[in-house]
């Protein structure tokens, strides 16, 4: 039954992918677009095959930064939310800062981050951490503060202190909200890596795209783009699975 449902979904995904590839091929075929503007799927497939080792190593660099940055952003975001929920003083001082910081388009900070941290991995990790931090912190914090009144009464009549109230009532109640924050982060994170790499880097998928573009290897650029899409999708699927298994009830 479940296996049937899964194979149905896989079948549908294959069908839509095949349709898209065919559409792509037909567009290239009928418009006669030159390969340096729009390479066909077969060209891109060949580029993927010929540069497999190169793509794999560059993807490895990007993926490592992605995961490290995501972990850092999530840990800091969760920590901030818990701290804000526990301390009214922190709420008073930190919340306006948080709201202001959210108004700054984080992607626009990439040149500054690269200026400060250099072309290496740290600037990419910080970029990812920055874009994942805010959705996690604000979604989790909102969830923590949205304790149903009945449960707040329960905490009070049971004589719970703020810490135990947080651990046993607020945190479990806020896990679905944390899950939505994580989902959002998983969508932003790959963007942040690539933008970080575009601004300045010596390796990674974003770097490879710039190089390929500069040398007129449009097929390799498209191949990198494909791999990036695949990386984003697998990150999203991992986070989605985690969110559904662990965080939602």
């Amino acid at each position, binding site marked *: 039954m479940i296996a049937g449902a899964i194979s149905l979904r896989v079948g549908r995904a294959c069908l839509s992918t095949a349709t898209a590839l065919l559409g792509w091929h037909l567009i290239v075929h009928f418009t006669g677009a030159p390969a340096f503007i729009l390479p066909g799927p077969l060209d891109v497939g060949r580029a993927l095959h010929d540069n497999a080792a190169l793509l794999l190593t560059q993807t490895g660099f990007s993926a490592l930064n992605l995961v490290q940055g995501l972990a850092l952003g999530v840990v800091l975001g969760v920590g901030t939310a818990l701290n804000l929920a526990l301390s009214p003083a922190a709420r008073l001082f930190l919340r306006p800062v948080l709201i202001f910081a959210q108004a700054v388009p984080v992607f626009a900070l990439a040149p500054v981050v690269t200026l400060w941290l250099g072309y290496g991995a740290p600037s990419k990790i910080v970029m990812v951490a920055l874009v994942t931090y805010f959705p996690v912190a604000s979604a989790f914090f909102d969830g923590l503060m949205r304790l*149903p009144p*009945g*449960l707040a*009464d*329960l*905490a*009070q*009549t*049971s*004589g*719970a*202190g703020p810490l*135990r*109230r947080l651990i*046993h*009532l607020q945190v*479990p*109640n806020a*896990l679905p909200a944390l899950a939505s924050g994580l989902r959002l982060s998983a969508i932003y994170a790959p963007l942040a890596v690539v933008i970080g790499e575009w601004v300045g880097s010596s390796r990674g998928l974003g770097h490879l795209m710039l190089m390929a573009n500069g040398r007129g290897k449009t097929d390799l650029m498209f191949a990198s783009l494909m791999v990036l899409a695949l990386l984003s999708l697998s990150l999203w699927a991992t986070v989605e699975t985690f969110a559904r298994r662990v965080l939602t*009830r």
Partner: protein
Amino acid sequence: MIAPGITLHGTLILGETVLLPDLRLAIAPGRWTVLLGPSGVGKTTLARLVAGLPTGARLEGALHADDGASLAGRVAVMAQDDQLLPWASALANVCIGDRLRGMRPDANRARELLDAVGLGALADRKPGLLSTGQRQRVALARTLYEDRPVVVLDEPFSALDPVTRHAMQDLAARLLAGRTVLMITHDPQEAMRLADAAWLIDSTEGICPLETPDTPAPRPVESPETFAAQAALLRRLTRASALSAGIAA
């Protein structure tokens, strides 16, 4: 455990307006005291005051236990909304009070109490998989687990179907025997089945005692005394509501 009586007198004020003037309420030790009255008159506010929960209203007067000790930590509450943790099993819900106080939960006693409310077989189920009546049984078991001498019941059975409601009334009367119970209800039948003493709260006439049958509670639904008392009470409530409607118009 010696259940104390409770005395409440004074004026209940919400903002600048007087909600209930000249309150005089004596809750007898170890008995069921029932409060009736139209919606919005302040019954729940009174119940929350006794339970030590935030109300938004303030009492100019006194609320104290007759034994002179503080009521804090001696009151358990059961509300219409069962206030169960949706992510925890029935068993974990019963002993959440100990967790919130940082004490070791007594799983054996929690199991005994679930047995006592007839849910021993469903101890591992989460509230989402229980019926409304079963959830209220879990809430009752949790109230008993708290083992407080004073119990406040705020319309705990009003969401139940009549058959389940009668069963729950009998169960609660049996299991809460010997405690000082303050129950809020809209239901004249429930009031006349369970009350040792009953009071009508009315915004114009204040708080006045109601006649209850001489027979011991819980009284059978079908007994003539219950019927007669219920009918008399319904007449009285209708008159009170007509009176307040007339004044409003």
